[in-house]
């Protein structure tokens, strides 16, 4: 990945000094990684929108209060906030995302995604549905590791810090997750 012109830390520093545009830049830079990760953790687009918003409200409030102490680690810090919010939610509601088959996917809607045409919309929906169903089948710890590594772009070391394990455990979970997904792809002849 190319090094950005202005680092996250520089943007954070300028935002704290009152430059609102820097937050927008951070959002544009990381929105896909963070949103996709949240989505695959909660399995619901609307919930994901809520958690994404709630995460950044926490980010803003922390930055405004001068309590940001994560120099050089903006994205892992944001992902830790998002992950903790999701975990708190599931702890309170005592539910975890459940495995559903393809016929059970009814609340998953892409109305709010911008597509240029109907065909693109259909292909995107099919790909995301399949990807989501595959990831849903993984055990929770493997799913979390896969999402944080692949979609959030965190290192195995950063994932270990967030999930309270060690790097070797994160690597093992990721390996099992990828092998598990491969088996599912082969078993069901899925084309992504």
């Amino acid at each position, binding site marked *: 990945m190319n090094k950005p012109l202005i680092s996250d830390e520089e943007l954070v520093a300028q935002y704290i000094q009152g430059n609102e545009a820097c937050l927008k830049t951070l*959002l544009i830079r990381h929105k896909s990684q963070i949103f996709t990760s949240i989505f695959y953790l909660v399995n619901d687009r609307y919930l994901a929108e809520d958690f*994404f918003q709630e995460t950044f409200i926490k980010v803003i409030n922390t930055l405004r209060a001068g309590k940001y102490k994560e120099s050089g680690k903006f994205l892992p810090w944001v992902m830790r906030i998002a992950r903790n919010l999701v975990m708190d939610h599931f702890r309170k509601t005592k539910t975890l995302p459940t495995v559903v088959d393809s016929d059970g996917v009814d609340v998953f809607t892409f109305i709010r995604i911008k597509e240029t045409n109907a065909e693109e919309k259909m292909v995107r929906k099919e790909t995301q549905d399949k990807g989501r169903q595959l990831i849903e089948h993984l055990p929770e710890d493997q799913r979390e590791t896969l999402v944080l590594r692949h*979609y959030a772009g965190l290192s195995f070391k950063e994932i270990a810090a967030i999930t309270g394990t060690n790097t070797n455990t994160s690597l093992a979970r990721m390996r099992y997750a990828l092998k598990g997904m491969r088996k599912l792809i082969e078993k069901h002849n899925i084309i992504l």
Partner: protein
Amino acid sequence: MQVFTQDDVLRFIYNEVDAKEKKSIEDALRLNPSLLTLYTELKEVVAKLGNAKMEPDNSTIDLIMAHSAASKMETSH
């Protein structure tokens, strides 16, 4: 020849190795068919996962920016 584990291959796929280790793993992949098979299998799944990225709605971004603007005003008062 240095022996590499499955986790080393995984770190290689996700660019979590230094330049020296990268070169050693590349050499090992050329010489070790079973390691190359593992690499190819994992890499294929990783590539497929890349197609499923999503973005939040623009209205969510707008709400976040509105909160930021409001909190800036509160802070300055």
